[in-house]
């Protein structure tokens, strides 16, 4: 199903076969309830959607990331997949800890620079409260240092993960995506935290 500008509903043949694209379900095409309206109503209400396994939010422009729609989608119990940047907006580890404690299944997406900022929140959530949070972390400059020659992210990212004792898999090519899926499945099954480190190109 195509909802102009921002949504797709993707069905697969799996038992839980529905993935919802990023969505905005309100009448206004920006964050406030005044101003430009969308040209026609959303084709389907959130409450009328079929079972949702995952919500993908591609980026944090207000015509795609609408917090009230996100709240209503969160009530459906779906996992959220969000890109770099949004995780920081959500004070990733603390909010993820609250979501997990509340019965949801969060996924943290941050860059390694966000990891460097995460220290005490990560320690507390993963090692004090022992919450099995999972994160996908972008490894800045790993594939290309053209923008930031000598980027010290290459010096500190892996030692930081080792220091916080988080089991991680390193993904440097799309051909390894099965490894990412396997690591997520393993961690979820074992109830333990985990990280997938994704090599990035230019900063």
């Amino acid at each position, binding site marked *: 199903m195509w909802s102009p500008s921002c949504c797709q509903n993707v069905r697969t043949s799996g038992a839980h076969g529905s993935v919802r694209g990023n969505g905005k379900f309100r009448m206004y095409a920006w964050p406030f309830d005044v101003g430009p309206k969308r040209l026609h109503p959303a084709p389907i209400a959130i409450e009328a959607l079929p079972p949702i396994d995952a919500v993908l939010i591609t980026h944090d422009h207000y015509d795609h990331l609408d917090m009230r729609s996100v709240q209503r989608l969160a009530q459906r119990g779906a996992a959220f997949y969000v890109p770099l940047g949004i995780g920081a907006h959500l*004070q990733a580890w603390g909010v993820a800890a609250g979501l997990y404690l509340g019965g949801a299944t969060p996924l943290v997406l941050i860059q390694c620079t966000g990891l460097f900022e995460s220290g005490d929140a990560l320690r507390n*959530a993963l090692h004090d409260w022992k919450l099995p949070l999972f994160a996908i972390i972008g490894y800045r400059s790993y594939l290309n240092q053209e923008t930031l020659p000598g980027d010290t992210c290459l010096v500190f990212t892996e030692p930081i993960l080792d220091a916080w004792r988080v089991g991680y898999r390193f993904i440097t090519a799309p051909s390894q995506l099965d490894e990412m899926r396997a690591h997520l499945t393993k961690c979820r099954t074992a109830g333990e935290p985990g990280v997938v480190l994704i090599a990035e190109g230019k900063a």
Partner: protein
Amino acid sequence: MSMQLRSAMRALHSARHDDDIVITTMGAAREWMILGPRDTDLVFVPSSMGQATSVALGLALAQPQRRVIVVNGDGSMLMNLGSLVSITAAAPANLVVILADNGVYEVTGSQATPGAAAGRAGGAAVDFAAMARACGFQSVHQFATSAEWTRAIKGVLSAAGPTFVALDVVSVPGTPGPRSPGPAAARAKAFMAAISEQ
């Protein structure tokens, strides 16, 4: 005018609903443990440098049918001011942030916070209620006495949120910090079991 933290927390203890989630940290956690938490409460000790409001936001989003009340200190609030913006961005109507503002880092020796008048090179104390209002909290309140807070609390808690309440609280130098009521991981499991049962 300021109120005793104990009396402020006693008012909350009386006014909360049975199915509310109450998250407490630092001095508020110490008082809450004395007053008696319910199974659906989270005594957030050990805490992580101001993360209580972020955890509360996650819980409010994951448990929209419950009221989530977080009692934070001003020192903790200063370490995670950005969470006020994240809370109003998500705007969970079921979230209440209560700030027990005593102007000091009490558990580390009552040093003045940089938000308190005594901790600043000049000027008045930081106005947390104004800050919350500027961030977009729907319902913002400030109370200087226990009598006012006790009189207003039911209306404040039942208003559509997100709600922010600043309480002017007396600092008591030398007051011991909270002792953890037990291993955090076991308490997390018990908490999750409690909220899934009710």
